[in-house]
């Protein structure tokens, strides 16, 4: 069952253009020029109940604008959005009871209050009776391991602890859909990993549908089974993570330590990435040449050590972004 249905969604912004310098400022004061930016162009997709999808794209791709339209913050110019049978632009308040939002760059907690007081405040915002809020705080406290700092003012918490509290605050009312906009921004790798495993546990426990935007490939790879890539306001890829890897992983990186120099220039399907005499790093396009053929060219007798790896997902995604730019 689809909980999110987005159909032909579009949004444009009118931006004032200004030439450089004081002269430019004066000119734009007398005769302002505007540019219409199509932030989101005719995008459509659906998300099933309990799914965790990654909604990714380079800066300015339109992902935040799309999420803001789905949460009722922005009004779309064209198209329709249906979240759990509700239209965000018409049923904003009703929808707010059903969804949770965490914006990594926008804090919603009161910094001088403790997480516990903040959670009580959020409970009141969602009209939840006190006894139920207490129960929910206890449950989420265990799940997100907040015990150590639940009674410390938010301003004294580390960024990782604060993000955990932000996520808990957005879960107090048991939302059916959770929008996470860059939840791991600015966190160190250990804390990131911790947040990821907590999100995963939450999704498993409550069957919450999660829409995640992130620039961190680790977030996407470890959390989501499906990925939607947007660029220049359009969806350039909507596929499962498995398919993404399968279709785009037709290139392998071969790093070899040799006891003899080898010349692989002009070999079809092989790109030399690094050649330092006895140390060689090549990219093999498996559509044109198999890995075993590439190894034969190196001559196995001359190989001291060899390492064959996939292209990092980060590079694959960058390539998809670039394809969209062309």
């Amino acid at each position, binding site marked *: 069952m689809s909980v999110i249905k987005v159909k032909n969604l579009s949004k444009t912004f009118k931006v004032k253009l200004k030439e450089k310098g004081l002269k430019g400022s004066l000119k734009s004061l007398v005769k302002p020029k505007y540019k219409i930016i199509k932030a989101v162009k005719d995008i459509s997709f659906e998300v099933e109940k309990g799914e965790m999808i990654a909604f990714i794209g380079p800066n300015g791709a339109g992902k935040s604008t799309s999420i803001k339209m789905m949460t009722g913050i922005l009004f779309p110019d064209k198209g329709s959005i249906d979240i759990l049978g509700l239209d965000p632009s018409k049923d904003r*308040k009703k929808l*707010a009871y059903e969804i949770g939002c965490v914006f990594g*760059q926008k*804090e919603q907690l009161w*910094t*001088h209050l403790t997480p516990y007081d903040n959670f009580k*405040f959020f409970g009141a*915002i969602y009209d939840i009776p006190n006894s139920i809020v207490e129960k929910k705080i206890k449950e989420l406290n265990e799940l997100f391991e907040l015990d150590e700092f639940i009674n410390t003012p938010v301003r004294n918490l580390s960024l990782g602890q604060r993000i955990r509290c932000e996520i808990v605050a957005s879960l107090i009312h048991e939302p059916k859909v959770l929008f996470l906009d860059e939840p791991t921004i600015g966190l160190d790798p250990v804390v990131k990993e911790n947040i990821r495993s907590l999100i995963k546990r939450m999704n498993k426990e409550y069957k919450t549908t999660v829409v995640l935007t992130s620039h961190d490939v680790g977030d996407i790879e470890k959390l989501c089974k499906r990925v939607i890539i947007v660029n220049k306001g359009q969806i350039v890829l909507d596929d499962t993570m498995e398919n993404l890897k399968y279709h785009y992983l037709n290139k392998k990186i071969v790093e070899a330590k040799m006891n003899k120099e080898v010349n692989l220039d002009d070999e079809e399907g092989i790109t030399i990435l690094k050649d330092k005499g006895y140390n060689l790093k090549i990219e093999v396009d498996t559509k044109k040449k198999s890995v075993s053929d590439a190894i034969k060219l190196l001559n196995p007798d001359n190989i001291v050590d060899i390492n064959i790896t996939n292209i990092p997902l980060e590079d694959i995604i960058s390539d998809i972004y670039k394809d969209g730019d062309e």
Partner: protein
Amino acid sequence: MLTAVKNQFKITLLSVKYALQREMLNKFTFFSNIIFMIINNGCFLIQWIILYSLRDGIGGYSFRQILLLWGLAAGTYGFSHFFFKNSYGLSSAINEGRLDNYLVQPKNVLLSLITSNVDVSAMGDILYGYIMIFIYGFEIKTFLLYTLFMVIGGIVLTSVAIIWGSLAFWFGKVDMVANTMNGLPTSFATYPDGIFKGFIKLLFYTIIPIGFASYMPIQIITDFNIYYFFVVISVTILFVILAFLIFYKGLKRYSSSNLMNVRV
């Protein structure tokens, strides 16, 4: 419907309570802001004492009415700035995309936004208003009417601030316009209306509505007039409706932003 209103009221009070708690973190700043505001207002009264020692009945006001005028001007300003401080920063909140957090909550966006901050020094204004009432001459009726008109006047000033601030949805940076228009009622409200004539007086009953926030209430407090009373109440309701209508009309044009925000 009634439960929704009750819940909204509960959240509004909680917001004010938490915002006040935040201001109380620094004891010295908290008390000095209040005390110095009272002293600041008191200093202005000296010029009126001097003026009234030279002549009586300026602009048709006795000195006691001047006390009432100053009390109400400070009280309405204080009430508005204490409970609805963020209505005075509405245009920058709109331009900087600070409405996002309120838009994803199931409560009234405008009320949640304007009550999420308090101006502690405005407590000094409210206290100063009551001091003026006691000097004017304490009577239960005067006290109750004054309190009612302090609230009503505060709501009128807040509505005006929301209207001017909401223009940011259409015209972008309107901070200067909004600040000037919000400052004008305060500048005029401490002078007796009798010294103003013609067009200026017309402004007091339109775009600088201190006629409804100060002058008519003073007439009612000194000499109760049921007709004036209903006019003030009706106009206040109109201003509130207008403020909400303009804000929500503009909200459809809200473009948010990706600036980093912290709720401090």
